[in-house]
């Protein structure tokens, strides 16, 4: 049988169901948010790594001539090599919905036994039957095809119709929808039948030890390179991807950063809510605490009651834990499908579960500990003398005195103003709750605006509308004249392009990157120069890095000499500038004149930048088609033909998960912040029920009381909005910069979304009125006697 004091706990809960529901809701929201974010975090980080590692990703990729099987065996037998495998890849285009998209056809020698970057059969046939292809599962929608369909592809200026026999899963390639790229797989025999020559020129190796050590991998790859070259092979470049890191790891990490940061803040918010509501609850209980002390209740015993009560609330709120876990599992599953990997197990890691339980129990307990301490610390005499009117005499503080000098305001509003600042502790809690809610809401929108603004800014600095990549270098003047003669085109500029790699002092080539060679005075781009200057004809062999390339060589400085391998030649270049090019891969720019000298491709170009007369999407689609038609009869093979809309879409697809999450975070902040607003306003009024009774006793009408209470609510709401509006700018700036660095290796062009401020102001105003009107309405319904006897 329960002792009377524990019965008191349960009956108090029964008697204060509304308030208890608020506390439990507040804890539950925290538990759900922590459960949600930590569960998805736990599942995604484990599964992405496990999935990727399970495919046995290549430690390094060496690009060389066609390689013979006996050489592979020799490499496999090396003690520092675990395994080696070759594959070939052809770049082409696929015809989808009236336009050409990029297409990559991978060729493996033995599909039944893929050992490095393993392929997993999905639907349909496996391995690819003779004359047919398989498509990467995430690329099926990009190809707008189904198993059994035939697709139109163009490889080396020849068009082929290929039946799709099935799908497979290749975790080694980025999600197709993000790249707007179709990955297909065929056997060497199929290519032979099609009359396409394929070179097995990609040698993929895995190292025998220290698979996570990039330096070790690079050293091993270079040893292999030396050996291959001693055998008469030419190794064009060596690529060492970040070890055991999925291509979309940084997107995932950025999302995780936001998830954990946002989850923590929501939990802080709910902790403040708990403090707020418990504080109000305890202040209502002060007299009862005093009575219990007066009849012999020890502080420990009484504290135990309220701690027990909070633990009970936690236990009730913990019922929401599965909701958070399920939400986390669903989120993980959704993100996994977006990033094209499988969730093998939705089990929540034990440490994450423990963390959820600990946070669900400890944080509310900690949040409630101060109100409990304060409530149970009060002496019997103080508590019995507490008639529910403020114990903090108004006028004792400087601010109060200033407020008391305010004149010319209606007395009820004056009372609202003074009441607002009377209980400093309560005010701080209320402000914190509302300001955090508002800050989260507005920050989510600001960060999203900053991301989109950065992309806008990038396209404002890019003055061409269509970029065409050709399969080979063609005469630059011819490219330009054909383009300019095309309907809808007003200008065109041919750029050189090639694959570059920096050679270090040991003669070792680093990862390759694209080198673009516009005319030095090109008007088509004016990237923001972070350091040094843009290209000019003044200095021979000047090179400009974009920020993403510099991030790979953080020790390099403007003015440094670098040795660059470009078009099979090694030359010395001087780093003259760093430019910011948001959402671009690592790139270097050299002047076209230098490109001609360095590559001997005099007057040749492989890339064509086109300016159109109209810049809307439909005009660009038409211009692209016109360009296709213009170049088709010339025999000049296009590899890709992307409008700024296409490339912008690819960039936006890369950040869509982040921006969607930010919108969701904003919506959740709205709910949690609104709940906080309702709770704090409600408890503010509830705490002063006795005072309301006094005001009614001296003649305040219902309307007058409502005006005072609602006025106070609105004052608090508006001040909290002001506070949030001030905090949110530096806060969202910091978050935007962190996110920019994590996702795009650059700071974002910070932008403020004014609608966030307006929406939050509206929310605060409406919620303040509702939240304070409801308790005022309840108080108005009580008789003066009831209110004065209010416990």
């Amino acid at each position: 049988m329960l002792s009377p004091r524990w019965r008191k706990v349960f009956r108090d809960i029964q008697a204060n169901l509304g308030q208890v529901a608020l506390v439990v809701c507040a804890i539950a929201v925290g538990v759900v948010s922590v459960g949600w974010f930590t569960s998805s975090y736990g599942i995604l980080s484990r599964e992405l790594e496990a999935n990727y590692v399970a495919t046995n990703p290549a430690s390094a990729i060496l690009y060389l001539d066609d390689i013979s099987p006996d050489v592979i065996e020799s490499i496999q037998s090396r003690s520092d090599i675990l395994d080696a495998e070759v594959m070939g890849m052809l770049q082409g285009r696929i015809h989808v919905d009236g336009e050409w998209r990029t297409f990559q056809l991978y060729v493996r020698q033995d599909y039944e036994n893929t050992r490095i970057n393993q392929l997993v059969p999905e639907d349909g046939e496996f391995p690819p039957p003779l004359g047919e292809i398989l498509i990467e599962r995430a690329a099926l929608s990009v190809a707008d095809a189904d198993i059994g369909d035939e697709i139109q592809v163009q490889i080396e200026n020849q068009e082929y119709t290929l039946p799709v026999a099935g799908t497979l899963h290749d975790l080694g390639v980025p999600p197709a929808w993000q790249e707007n790229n179709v990955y297909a797989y065929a056997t060497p025999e199929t290519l032979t039948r099609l009359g396409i020559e394929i070179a097995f020129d990609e040698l993929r190796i895995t190292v025998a030890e220290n698979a996570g050590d990039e330096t070790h991998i690079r050293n091993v790859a270079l040893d292999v390179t030396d050996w291959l070259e001693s055998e008469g092979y030419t190794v064009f470049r060596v690529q060492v991807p970040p070890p055991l890191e999925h291509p979309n790891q940084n997107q995932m990490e950025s999302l995780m950063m936001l998830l954990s940061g946002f989850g923590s803040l929501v939990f802080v918010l709910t902790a403040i809510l708990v403090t707020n509501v418990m504080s109000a609850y305890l202040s209502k209980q002060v007299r009862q605490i005093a009575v219990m002390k007066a009849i012999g209740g020890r502080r420990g015993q009484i504290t135990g009651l309220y701690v027990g009560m909070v633990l009970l609330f936690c236990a009730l709120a913990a019922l929401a834990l599965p909701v958070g876990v399920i939400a986390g599992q669903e989120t993980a599953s959704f993100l996994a499908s977006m990033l094209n990997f499988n969730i093998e197990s939705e089990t929540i890691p034990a440490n994450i579960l423990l963390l959820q339980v600990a946070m669900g129990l400890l944080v509310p307990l900690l949040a409630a500990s101060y109100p409990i301490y304060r409530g149970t610390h009060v002496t019997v005499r103080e508590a019995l003398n507490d008639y529910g009117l403020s114990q903090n005499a108004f006028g004792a503080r400087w601010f109060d005195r200033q407020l008391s000098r305010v004149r010319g305001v209606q007395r009820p509003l004056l009372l609202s103003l003074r009441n607002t600042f009377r209980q400093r502790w309560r005010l701080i809690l209320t402000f914190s709750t509302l300001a955090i809610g508002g800050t989260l809401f507005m920050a989510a929108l600001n960060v999203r605006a900053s991301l989109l603004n950065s992309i806008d800014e990038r396209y404002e600095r890019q003055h061409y509308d269509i970029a065409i990549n050709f399969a080979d270098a063609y005469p630059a003047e011819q490219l330009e004249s054909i383009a300019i003669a095309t309907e809808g085109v007003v200008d065109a500029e041919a750029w050189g392009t090639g694959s570059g790699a920096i050679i270090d002092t040991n003669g070792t080539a680093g990862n390759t990157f694209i080198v673009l060679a516009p005319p030095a005075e090109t008007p088509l781009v004016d990237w923001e120069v972070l350091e040094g200057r843009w290209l000019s004809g003044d200095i021979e062999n000047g090179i400009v890095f974009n920020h993403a390339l510099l991030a790979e060589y953080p020790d390099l400085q403007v003015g440094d000499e670098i040795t660059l391998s470009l078009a099979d030649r090694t030359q010395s270049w001087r780093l003259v500038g760093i430019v910011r090019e948001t959402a671009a891969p690592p790139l270097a720019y050299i002047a076209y004149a230098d490109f001609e000298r360095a590559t001997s491709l005099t007057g040749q170009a492989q890339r064509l930048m086109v300016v159109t007369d109209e810049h809307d999407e439909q005009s660009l689609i038409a211009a692209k088609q016109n360009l296709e038609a213009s170049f088709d009869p010339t025999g000049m093979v296009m590899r890709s033909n992307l409008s700024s809309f296409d490339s912008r879409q690819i960039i936006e697809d890369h950040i869509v998960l982040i921006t969607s999450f930010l919108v969701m975070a904003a919506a959740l902040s709205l709910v949690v912040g609104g709940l906080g607003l309702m709770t704090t306003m409600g408890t503010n009024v509830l705490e002063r029920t006795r005072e309301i009774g006094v005001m009614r006793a001296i003649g305040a009408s219902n309307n007058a009381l409502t005006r005072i209470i609602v006025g106070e609510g609105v004052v608090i709401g508006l001040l909290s909005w002001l506070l949030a509006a001030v905090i949110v700018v530096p806060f969202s700036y910091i978050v935007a910069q962190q996110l920019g660095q994590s996702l795009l290796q650059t700071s974002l062009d910070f932008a403020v979304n004014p609608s966030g401020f307006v929406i939050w102001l509206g929310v605060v105003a409406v919620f303040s009125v509702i939240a304070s009107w409801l308790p005022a309405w309840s108080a108005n319904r009580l008789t003066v006697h009831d209110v004065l006897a209010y416990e």
Partner: protein
Amino acid sequence: MNTYIENGVPRRQIIKLEGVQKAYETSAGEFVALRDINLSIKTGEFATVIGKSGSGKSTLLNIIAGIDRATAGEVVVGGTSLNGLSENQLAIWRGKTVGVIFQFFQLLPTLTVAENVMLPMDFGRFLNGNKRKQRALDLLERVGIVGQAHKLPHTLSGGQQQRVAIARALANDPPILVADEPTGNLDTHTAEVVLNLFSALVNEGKTILMVTHERDIETRSHRLISLEDGRILVDGAGQKELKDALPTLA
């Protein structure tokens, strides 16, 4: 505790205050509620404290009940010096030694009448769990409201609630009861019932110290202590002292 013989009966000095002073810091400066109080109350005595509002009578009661602390002087109640006790120790001590009765009853609204009476036993670990209920019912029987034992306080009249409060004060069988204007909120008839109950308890050996404004208290109280401006104005048991003191009631 000092024990001595009075009229052939051994009597103990159960409450002893020496040089007690109580001052409060207020925004207007220091307010002295009690000044140099010397007071001794014996076991089984029914002492009444009277005085105008603000004279310090409730403060005196609170200090004796360990609810408030003296700024200076010594307070010994039930053989225990209260001066050095922590709040916690005071609570434990109070649970065993003093039963407190308030003007506004102060019953816990979410506990039934019987549970309110059982609560001090629960806190003070008085009796075994299963015997507590029986004792609560006995005490409620004693105060004449056992029939209401399972009701919540708000369903009871003021007089009934005060009788529950008295039963609760008696729960741990403390030797001393302190009552701060226990009849202040009751009608004349109900006040009479409560005072009769107090008289009966005194006859059973309880010591009662009560603050009151009741005018006919001289017929029941053994001793009347009149306070004015924090000082004892009159302290006596005779009819003369009572008659002298009564005009000082507010």
